[in-house]
């Protein structure tokens, strides 16, 4: 291996690592606020990438029908309950967001020549379709069992992961897709050619991480989520609705997932079931951060990305083995630092 190959591998590793960092942040956030281990994160990545690909192929993305279907269910449950309680404005708001919005989006898809729209508009539409599924999913699947033990929430996540992979195959077919890059520009950095897409990934990741930081430090909703993560009951007593916190968290996680999918679709071919492995690498990073620390999780993600790209050069058959066994020394290190017996849930 010479320097130029090392630089290329390093570039690959850092690009992928930035994506893993985003996913790790979302996983840490979802777990801290709702105690849900968000296995379906990967499906949001795949849905994001493949919805964009479908749009570019000139077809109405099938995911929009899923959005409509889940919206109908939420409307039936929530607007129905609000009407019975005599809260008409609330019922109207629920129906507006969950019924009118998806249908309007579907109409836009059907009428506009989406394939010929500028790429950034397509990306925006993709996010508009995929992201609301996060809060809808929380409302339909998790809210009824929000107080259940972590194990039950985990099994719900796994079941949803299975269902979403099945739906993915139905929506997108078995073929993989790759979308065109956001920019064809490339920069020369000494001997290294940096592609425009890499710059996009890094800049968007950095911006998003910065925005999340501002959100959690400066806004009331961000602080409410942090409060819920630290003490669920205490936050509830202070008037923070656990359902709202859950939906907001899932909104952010779905946003991060779908955006990551859109960002990496030009770099790697995405299949309907690719998401799982990508998200698992986010998990590895999150574990390094102890499911609690955002900066360490982000560093862990970069480490995972670099390890992956270098091991694919030296021992590509064992690439996954190497990445996933990385967890073991990390776990060992953490276990040596755990002293007294602790009580668990």
């Amino acid at each position, binding site marked *: 291996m010479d320097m130029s190959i090392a630089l290329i591998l390093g570039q690959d590793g850092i690009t992928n690592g930035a994506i893993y960092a985003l996913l790790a942040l979302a996983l840490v956030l979802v777990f801290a606020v709702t105690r849900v281990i968000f296995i379906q994160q990967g499906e949001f990545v795949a849905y994001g990438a493949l919805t964009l690909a479908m749009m570019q192929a000139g077809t109405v993305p099938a995911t929009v029908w899923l959005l409509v279907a889940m919206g109908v269910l939420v409307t039936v449950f929530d607007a129905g309950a609000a009407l019975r309680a005599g809260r008409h404005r609330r019922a109207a708001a629920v129906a507006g967001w969950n019924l009118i919005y998806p249908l309007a989006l579907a109409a836009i898809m059907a009428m506009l020549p989406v394939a010929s729209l500028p790429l950034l508009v397509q990306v925006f539409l993709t996010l508009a379709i995929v992201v609301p599924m996060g809060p809808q999913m929380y409302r339909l699947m998790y809210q009824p069992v929000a107080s259940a033990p972590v194990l*039950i929430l985990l099994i*719900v996540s796994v079941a949803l992961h*299975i269902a979403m992979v099945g739906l993915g195959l139905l929506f997108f077919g078995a073929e993989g897709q790759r979308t065109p890059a956001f920019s064809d520009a490339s920069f020369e950095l000494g001997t290294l050619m940096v592609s425009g897409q890499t710059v996009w990934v890094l800049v968007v990741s950095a911006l998003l991480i910065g925005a999340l930081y501002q959100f959690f430090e400066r806004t009331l909703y961000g602080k409410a989520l942090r409060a819920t993560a630290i003490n669920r009951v205490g936050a509830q007593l202070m008037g923070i609705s656990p359902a709202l916190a859950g939906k907001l968290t899932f909104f952010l996680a779905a946003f991060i997932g779908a955006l990551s999918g859109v960002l990496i679709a030009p770099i790697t071919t995405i299949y309907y079931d690719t998401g799982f492995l990508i998200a698992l690498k986010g998990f590895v990073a999150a574990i390094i951060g102890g499911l609690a620390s955002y900066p360490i999780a982000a560093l862990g993600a970069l480490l995972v990305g670099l390890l992956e790209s270098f091991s694919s050069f030296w021992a590509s058959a064992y690439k*996954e083995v190497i990445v996933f066994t990385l967890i*073991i020394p990390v776990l060992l290190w953490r276990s040596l630092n755990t002293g007294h*017996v602790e009580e668990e849930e």
Partner: protein
Amino acid sequence: MTVRLPADPVPSDASAARRRPALLSSRLVLGVFLVLLLVVPAILSPYYVTLLNYIGLYAMVALGLVLLTGVGGLTSFGQAAFVGLGAYTTAALTTATDLPAWLAWVGASPWLTLVAGLLITAAVAVVLGSLTLKLSGHFLPLGTIAWGISLYFLFGTMQSLGGHTGISGIPPITLFGRALDDGREIYYLIWAFLLVAMLTTHNLLDSREGRAIRALKGGRVMAEAMGVDTARARMVIFVIAALLACASGWLYAHMQRFVNPTPFGVHIGIEYLFMAVIGGAGYVWGAIVGASVITVLKQWLQDLLPQLLGSSGNFEMIVFGVLMVLVLHRAREGVWPILKKLVPVRTAPKTIDTAAEPLPRRTLPAAGERILEAKNVTRKFGGLVANDNMSLEVRAGEILALIGPNGAGKSTMFNQLSGVDTPTSGEVLFLGKPVAGHNSREIARMGMSRTFQHVKLLPTMTVLENVAIGAHLRSDKGVLSAAWRLDRAEEARILKEAARQIERVGLQDHMFDEAGSLALGQQRILEIARALCADPCLLLLDEPAAGLRFKEKAALSELLRKLRAEGMATLIVEHDMDFVMGLVDRVVVMEFGHKIAEGLPDEIQNNPAVLEAYLGGVD
């Protein structure tokens, strides 16, 4: 002589008959089930026998998860990898032609490769367990995904294991000279394995080690204080679950006569966890129920949905996933508890053998001997000095009270004495030996037993079982003797001792109630019974009278006086001054981490410093 104790306050016969349908004997139900299992291959077509074979194989892995996840609270996604270890070990050894001579003899018989597989799996499980089990609950499932995936990729990439094409030509198992090469024949072997595994697991859970295992979920601090090595108990169930998975893999390899990596991936590992949770993760029978529900449902969906929808998509995955979520919305405990209600089986109450030999007792030190001595104990949390240069001593046959306003540092002091925490400086001597920095297990073994300010008991276990945990260190039968019921003599002695302590504290009417159903005051009394069951020479009681009614307090006073007369040393932290002043021999008063007074109850009641601490200064 054996006394049968009713499970709950005996209702009058007529109302009992009205309330419950006629109950079936559990033996009858079990017998019907076994007969059904026996005749099924003769009745059903080979297709269904194969289905039952798979259910048996899956249930064996799910059973391990019931023990590991449902009972022990440790979630694992990696069980499929252990199944793979069992399958690949036997496949590689029985088909290899170029093994070195020292190894070749193992491949001669599948029964030898079973032993080899179990040994390898146990070794791998011990290594993985020691790496991951110390972590708190949320890391473990993620860690298991990681090694589950790693092992799976290893199976696929190692050319010596056939890579992704796998290994074929595995010989059938031979039993008494007969080759089990037909689905109907191996059916009996699979279900025999499963039933033995269920029987031994059931036995294990109803034993001394079983109580320790059941305490892992939500009772670790308490169990450690009672002398249970919880880290070891976690490792034990982890290895047992891995061995069950390995045996399932061995049977699978010889049933299929072919292995490839696909059935050992992390997705299948996830499915095993599904089976355990859907069936009822806390119940031994949940394993069979879960394996059946999932296997049949998947098969059924695969056959039915394409006909129904007219096209072959991946609909079964979608419907399956959504159905699972709906089941969990309706039945968090799984399907087994629902089935159990449909078939009302009589549960025999536990019996207490009053003729059992009493457990050995420790000889209590002579009255007046110094039992516990704290010298200049200081505990700092950052800048906060919670205990500052505290000294106190407790003698045999004496009750010492530690009192003080809220936040005085009493509970911190308690934790320094009992090994829950380690002092920043100073010395704690128990029976003349330094114990500061030792873990609570060692201290418990030396004869110190405690209760907790915030009650720590296992709410779904009976009062009797909760108290029996206290006797953990007075008995020594292990997992194997429990599994094969070689521990019954000792178990009878433990239960007799537990029952004796329960009667002693006056909870005999609640002996078979769930501990969680007691009032808070009674739960505190239960903790005292549990502490006494350890046969201590020093009793540490943290606010024992809180939440007790007047008469209960009087009874508790009486009990503590009796113990004192027997030579027990007692240290109590208490806020109820009437209770304290009428009972104890000496009082130590704390405020802001310091000792502000020490003496006889009467002196303390008139001590100006104490009055100021409690009532505020008189300006």
